C-alpha cells in the first residue's frame, strides 16, 4: 500500500508524479537551466529541552532561526561573520557560532542557548552578576554560553584554559578580567555541588 501511494514531487514547483521517470521528464522539460531547486525543508531539533518541528529556508542561519523565528533573543548578533562569539550556542555539546551555521544543518541536533542555561539555574549566571562580568551586556550571553561549554568538559580549568576558551569572544567594554574570576568561582561551586552529590548541571 505504502509503495503504491508514493508520489514523486517536483522540488521546483511541487507537481506530483506517480513514477520517477515522469518526474525526470518533467524537470528536464520544464526546469532545464533553473539551477538547483530551492524549497523549504522541515527539520526537527531540540532547543533548551523543547522539541520543535520547523520548516526552514535554505538561507536561514541557526542564529536567525533561534533569535528571530523562535524569539529567543538572548543570543546576540555583533560581528555577523564568526569573529566575535556573541551568538554562541551549544550544539550537541559543543559551542558553535550560530551565525555561521545553517538552520538546515541542525536537523536532529540538541541546542542549548543562554535562556536554557539560565532556566537550569546554572551557577554561572549568579557568578556573572556578582562579579560584574558585564557592562553594556550585549556580548554577555555569548560569554556565558562559551563558559558553560568549557565547564561542561573541564571542571577545573586553569587561567590559561579559560583564556583560550574565551579567545573567540569579543567584549567592547573590556570586561575580560571579570570573566576569568566568574568562571573560576563557578567551577569551584560546581565541584562542591558535585562532591555533595547534587550533580553538576
Amino acid at each position, binding site marked *: 500500500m505504502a509503495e503504491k501511494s508514493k508520489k514523486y514531487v517536483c522540488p521546483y514547483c511541487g507537481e506530483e508524479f506517480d513514477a520517477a521517470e515522469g518526474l525526470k521528464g518533467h524537470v528536464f522539460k520544464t526546469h532545464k537551466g533553473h539551477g538547483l531547486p530551492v524549497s523549504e525543508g522541515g527539520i526537527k531539533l531540540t532547543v533548551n529541552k523543547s522539541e520543535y518541528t520547523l520548516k526552514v529556508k535554505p538561507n536561514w542561519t541557526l542564529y536567525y532561526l533561534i533569535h528571530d523565528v523562535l524569539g529567543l*533573543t538572548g543570543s546576540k548578533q555583533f*560581528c555577523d561573520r564568526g569573529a*566575535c562569539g556573541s551568538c554562541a550556542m551549544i550544539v550537541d555539546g559543543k559551542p558553535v557560532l550560530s551565525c555561521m551555521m545553517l538552520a538546515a544543518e541542525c536537523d536532529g541536533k540538541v541546542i542549548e542557548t543562554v535562556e536554557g542555561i539560565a532556566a537550569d539555574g546554572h551557577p554561572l549566571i549568579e557568578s556573572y552578576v556578582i562579579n560584574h562580568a558585564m557592562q*553594556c551586556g550585549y556580548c554577555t550571553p555569548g560569554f556565558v554560553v562559551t563558559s558553560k561549554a568549557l565547564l561542561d568538559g573541564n571542571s577545573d580549568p586553569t587561567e590559561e584554559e579559560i583564556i583560550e576558551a574565551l*579567545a573567540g569572544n569579543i567584549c567592547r567594554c*573590556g570586561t575580560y*578580567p571579570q570573566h576569568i574570576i566568574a568562571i573560576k568561582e563557578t567551577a569551584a561551586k560546581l565541584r562542591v555541588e558535585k562532591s555533595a552529590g547534587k550533580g553538576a548541571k
Partner: protein
Amino acid sequence: MVSKHPEDQTARMVEMFDNLGADKYPLEQYKYIGQRIPRRVDGLDKASGQADYTMDIQLPGMLYMRFLVSPYPHAKILKMDTGKAEKLPGVRHVLRYDDPGLPETENIGYFPIFQNDRPLDCIAHFEGQPMGAAVAADTEAIAEEALSLIEIEWEERPFILDPVAASEPGAPLSYPERYGDGNFWNRGVLDELIHGDIKKGFAEADKVVEFKITRNGHTWISPERPCGVWKWNGDCAEAWVKNQRPFVAKRNITTWFGGIPMNKIQLHMPYQGATFGGWTHVDWSFGGLYCAAAVSRRTKRPVKYILTRREDFYGSSMDEGIYFVKVGFKNDGTITAVDGTVYHVSAIHPAFSPVVHLHENTRIPHLHGQIKSIWVNKGPSVGIRCEMLVPVLVQTMVMDRVAAELGMDPIEVALKNDGCQGHDMDWLNEQKKKCGFEVHDSLKECIEKGKAEFKWDESWHKPAARKLPNGRMHGVGFTWAHEWSDSTGSGEVAIRIERSDGTATLLGIHCDNGVGAENAYCQIAADELGMRMEDVHYNPHFDPGFHLNSPDSSCGMSANGWAVRHAARILKQKILESATSPGSPTQRGSYAPAFPNTKPEELDIKNSRIFVKSDPSRWISLADYARLMAIQGPVSNAELFGARSAWTEPLFAYAYHVQEGEYNPHSPREKFCRQAHFMEVEVDTGTGEIYVTRIVNVNDVGKVINRMSCEGQQYGGSIMGMSRGKLEEIVHDPVTGVMLNGNLIDYKIATIKDVGPIGTMLVESGMGYGPYGLVGIGEDIATVVPHVIAPAVYNAIGVWIYDFPITPDRVLKALGKI
C-alpha cells in the same frame, strides 16, 4: 508640583548653590555608598539573556528597512530606477531621495549649531554613506536583495582623503555643498586657545623640540548596530531608539511631519549595547528613524531600520588627524611653552584645542593651540569616549618627550609641571580652599599609590637598556591627566514610594550604556532615604517624562547624582512630615497620624523602617506605612466594611540638577583631581609585536559610589585604550577611497588574549564638584591609556614612534628594519 513644604524646596535650592564648591552636606554614615555592590540592577537581565536591546524588538507585522549605501567616496545620483526592487516579492515600500514627501530642509535632528543632513540625500561624501533609497520588506534578506536591484546612474566626483593635502589651495573640494571655497571648517568654537606669550615662552626655554604625530581614525564599534523601531498608534508615535540622549530624540521627533506633540510620543530606551558617544553624535543618526517613521505611516505597519556591521563604521574618533607640536623647556624639566596645531579630519563637533589639557592641569605659562578642521571624503569624526583624545595625546607626548630629552624620570617631570591654568600648586591649593575642599595633592597621591603597585622604581630604566630572557625588549611608560566630569547639562528625576510594599522607584529615562550608573543612583537613593538597597529600583528604559542627563562627558554621576540626592532628601522629609501629620481630610474627617504628637525631626528612617529616634522600639515599616492597595483604591479592605484605617498621601518627590561646568566657557572651573597610568610592554624587535604585559590605573574619583563600577571603568577603559593604542585604525584605499577593513576580522579590537594583568586603584580626595565630592570616571581611562604605549615602546627600543596606532610595521619601520 505645589509643595506642601516650601522650605524643602528652599533647602534644596541652597544645596544646589552650595555645590558650586565642596559638598557641605555629605551623609554622616554611608551604608551602601562607597561599597562593592555586587548585585547590579541590570545584572540578571544581562547575564541570562533577558535584556532586550533595540535589535531584539519584534512587533507583529513589522517590516525591516535597509539603506542603499554609496559605493563611491564622492558621487551624486543622476538617475535611479527602483522598478525592479519594487516588484520583488516581499518588498512593501521603496523610499527614494526624490520622494515629494521627504523634507528638503527639515531639521531631522541633532544640535541646531551643527549641520543637519537630509534623511535621504542624493549626494554621498564618503564611501558607505547611507543615501539615495531605503527599502522596507518582510525580511531583512529581502530588503537587501531589493537594494541590489536598484539601478543607478552616478556622477563620480573627485575626492580627497589626506587632510594636509586637502588644506592646500586648489585641492579637490570634499564637500562643495557645505564648504564651497575650500575644505576648511573653522567655526571659531573652542578651536584656539592662547594663554601667556608663546614667543616669550620659547625664548625662556633652554631647549626646544618639535615633532609631528599622525593618528589614524578609529571608531566606536558598538556591539549593537545602529537601528530603531517606529510604530504609529493613530496619530501617536511610539519609538524604540538606539541613542544615548533620549531627550534629544524626543525633541527631534516632535519637529517631524509638521509637528508631533510631545505628549503623543512614547519613547522606549532599551539597553543600548555600548554606544561610547559614537553613533549618537553622528548628524544623520536620526535619519534612519525618520525614514522608518515615514514608511510606517504609508504602510501602516511598524518598521525597524537596521544598518549593517560595515555601515556601523560610519565615522571615526575626534583625534583622527595630523599634529604639529613644539615644546620649550628648561634643563630642570620645567616646561615653558607648548604650541600645537592639529589638522583634524572631518570633525562634526567643535573639537578641543590640543593644549586645553595643559591649560587645565599644568603650570606651563605660555600655551598656544589650534585645531584646523579639514573636511575630507571620509565619514565624520565624532566624540567617542571621548572629545579629550586630542589634548591627552598631546599632553602625554609633550611630558614624556621632555623627560626623554633630559633623561629624567617622567614622573618627576609630571610633578614639576602639575598646576592649573599656568599657575603653580600653591595657587591651585588656594582655589581648593576657596571652594571649601580639604586640600590634597591629588597627583602626588595617585603617583605614590601607582608607583608602589607597579614597582616603578625597579621597572623604569634608560631607553633600550633591558633585554629579557625571552629575547624581547622591556619598557615601561607613564602618563597622567586630570579627571574631567564637568560639562554643562541637567538631570531631573522623581522617586515614588510604591503602595503595598513601600519600595522606592526612581523615575527618569536614561541611556544604559553599561557603566552601571543605575546602581549608583540606587545606592545614593537608598542611603539618603534610609532604605535597604533591595527596596530601591530603577528602570531607565521607559519614559515617565523626566529626563536624566545623558552619560556624555562623564557627567552621569556629577549631574544625576545630585538630582537623585536632592529627590531622596526631599522625599525623606516628606515621609517624615506625612508620618507626623493627620492624613488628608475626607467627608468624615482626617486620618490620625502614624506617629501622633511627634515632630518630623524626632523621626528617622533606616532599613526601610520609620522609627522614633529616642525610642527605636516605636517603628513602622515603609511597607505598612505606604498602605495596601485595596479593591477600590489605596485603603485597606476593612474600609469597605465600615472600619476606619489609616490612609497616607502619595509619597513622591522630584528634583533636578543643573550643572554649568567646564564646557561652558563662561564659568570654567579648576580641576583638582588627577589620574596616573603605568604600562609595561615587551617588544619583539624581530616581528615588531608589542606585548602589553601590565597596566596600573590610579584615579582620584573624589568619592567612590560603587567601587566595582569604578574598577570596571578602569580595567575596561585600559583594555579599550590599549586596543586603540596598538591595534585600531580604519584603512582607506587611497586609489578608490573605499574603506578596506569595515568588519571585525580586518579591524582589530582587543581580545582576552591581548591583555596582561591590570591593577586598579582609587583615590578619594573629595575634591570633585559632584555630590559627596565625586568626579566621573567613564571616559578617562579609555581616552588617556591609548597614548602611554608610545613612551613605553620608547623605553623599550629607544626610538620614538609618532604614528598611532603603534602597529608591528610601524615598530619595524622605526627600527629601520623595513
